[in-house]
């Protein structure tokens, strides 16, 4: 499968948008403009973008407490994401969701599920609706390495497997569940080893190489679309920042962090394609400027947007 230059550049721009979105959010948070807490994903762009670029318009993704890059990569306009982080009425959840619940089902992403592993059964169920309604779509279910130890992981993947549901389980293994190293809480070497227990394919790949992720996801998605059932994809990646805003990350060695910085997915992409000629310094600058402008407009939109009324907290509990 040869990727067109346009597709490669689209993936690159999406990764840059993810990274710069997170950096902008971090800065806004430090300025005290965003309430609550945030869980960021700098360094994990290749997995978010590689997976989402492999999807079709009416496919669905489910996400986690670390959802910003998934939402950006899925193509939800950043102004609605930013407005949600600013707790504004114009946010993608009207200010009722916040950082940990961003998403918009109409745009292919369920509100993010911030209970670790909680979204996995929902993804399987959504896939059941696709299968039952004979739609050609699939669900991409994001979760972290930590979620692979919780019961809902087992229950949902087992059900998806026995019914051949059109879902791809995407484990972003960033090596830590908060501060706990995954190899201390998992006896098998790889999360993908667990696929054998459900009789489905499991594969571990370099999650910091966007084209590798894209190709693996296309393959798993095609399999799911053909009615052959789910795949467990493990993407090895690393968050270059703390678990949440309050985490300086003392549980990770400087050497380890430095080693993973060398595998930064955006830097790797640039190094490869500056050599091959797809990218030039000028083009990189142009892309970054356009992303910066998009983000500045998003922040301006969010800041100018009205806050919800206090008593609006009383609506949207029930449909009727």
């Amino acid at each position, binding site marked *: 499968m040869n990727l067109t230059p346009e597709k490669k550049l689209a993936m690159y721009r999406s990764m840059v948008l993810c990274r710069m979105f997170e950096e902008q959010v971090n800065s806004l948070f430090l300025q005290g403009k965003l309430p609550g807490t945030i869980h960021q994903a700098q360094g994990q762009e290749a997995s978010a973008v590689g997976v989402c670029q492999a999807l079709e318009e009416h496919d669905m993704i489910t996400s986690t407490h670390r959802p910003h890059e998934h939402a950006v990569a899925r193509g939800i306009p950043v102004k609605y994401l930013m407005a949600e982080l600013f707790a504004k009425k114009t946010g993608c959840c009207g200010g009722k969701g916040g950082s940990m*619940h961003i998403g918009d089902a109409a745009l292919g992403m369920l509100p993010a599920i911030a209970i670790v592993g909680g979204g996995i059964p929902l993804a399987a169920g959504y896939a059941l609706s696709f299968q039952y309604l004979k739609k050609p779509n699939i669900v991409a279910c994001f979760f972290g390495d930590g979620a692979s130890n919780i019961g809902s992981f087992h229950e949902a993947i087992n059900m998806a497997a026995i019914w051949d549901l059109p879902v791809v389980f995407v484990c972003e293994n960033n090596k830590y569940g908060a501060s706990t190293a995954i190899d201390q809480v998992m006896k098998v070497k790889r999360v993908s080893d667990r696929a054998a227990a459900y009789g489905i394919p499991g594969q571990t790949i370099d999650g910091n190489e966007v084209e590798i992720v894209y190709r693996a996801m296309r393959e798993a998605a095609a399999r799911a679309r053909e009615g052959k059932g789910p795949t467990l994809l493990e993407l090895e990646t690393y968050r270059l920042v703390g678990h949440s805003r309050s985490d300086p990350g003392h549980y990770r060695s400087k050497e380890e962090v430095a080693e993973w910085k060398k595998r930064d997915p955006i830097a790797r992409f640039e190094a490869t394609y500056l050599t091959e000629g797809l990218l030039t310094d000028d083009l990189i600058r142009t892309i970054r400027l356009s992303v910066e402008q998009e983000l500045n407009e998003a922040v301006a939109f969010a800041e100018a947007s009205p806050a919800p009324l206090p008593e609006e907290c009383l609506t949207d509990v029930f449909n009727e």
Partner: protein
Amino acid sequence: MSSMNEMVSRPEKEGRKITLVEALREALQEEMRRDERVILLGEDIGVSGGFGGAFTVTLGLAEEFGHHRVIDTPITEAGIAGVATGAALGGLRPVADVQYGDFLFLAMDQLANHAAKLRYMSGGKLRVPLVMRAPVGATTRGAQHAQSLEAFFMHVPGLKVACPSNPYDAKGLLKTAIRLDDPVIFFEHKLLYGSKGSRKEAGGIEVFGTVPQEEYLIPFGEAKVVRSGQAVTLVANLLMVHRAMQAAKNLAAAGIEAEVIDVRTLVPFDWSTLFESVSKTGKLVIVEEDNLTGGWGAEVAARTADRCIGYLQAPIRRVAAPDTPVPFAPIMENFYVPSVERIVTAVTDLM
């Protein structure tokens, strides 16, 4: 929803005498015929040669609708609740069930954190048309197949809670639950099922109800005054409606005319019917099978005290189970579950 406005609660007349199980089965069957999006998910519900779920409610439905609509699951309560919720988000109208309500604790994250909150978290963009059926009630099975769980779910904003006492209400409420775009926890009492044959429930009471041939729906949030009286208001749900009615008969023999209200749904709760009754009688006794502390009766007592204090002529009394797990020995279980005698005593103490 416009269809809700068309709902008519018909009088019970010219119907057939059927059991609660048969009424529930008819509700499922009619809604599945009416709407292709209605599917069933549960353990042992459609197995050929099986028993149609723990209490035979789904018997025969797989034969009519196929195994793609009557879906047998692994033993996987969190998975059932989560997959059903996801399918509801995707446009289906799943009716999931657990064999015993006690197993809902295994599904609590999916029900309380996801099904109940996704509409809210999405800013009102999502709908979760899910029904989760659950049998409750103490039936000499010991502590883990016996609990009354209504209060747990009544406490979670975003969940509706139904608890019918008879076949007519069960059918009409279940049909409504399936058509609602909100998640509903639908409680059924094991002693009211009227299951026959090998699934017959020891100690079950014969609750045949008159159910009309024609289709009908019962809206949520409308309690039913099942007996009129001036002396005291008894409010109850599920099996306790029958105990309260028997108590009312016994009290009438002593010249005390009790009004009995069947709440039918706890969320939404029909406060106006209750307050109107208490305003008239001036006395309230709440009867529930749940443990006393934090039971739904506590909420009813607090709200009634707040709203009807000027009408109350006596303290509000609660007849509930003690704060213990459900015991096994029948002699202890009979002590544990509120009896007709306890209800009568609670009322006469107020007179």
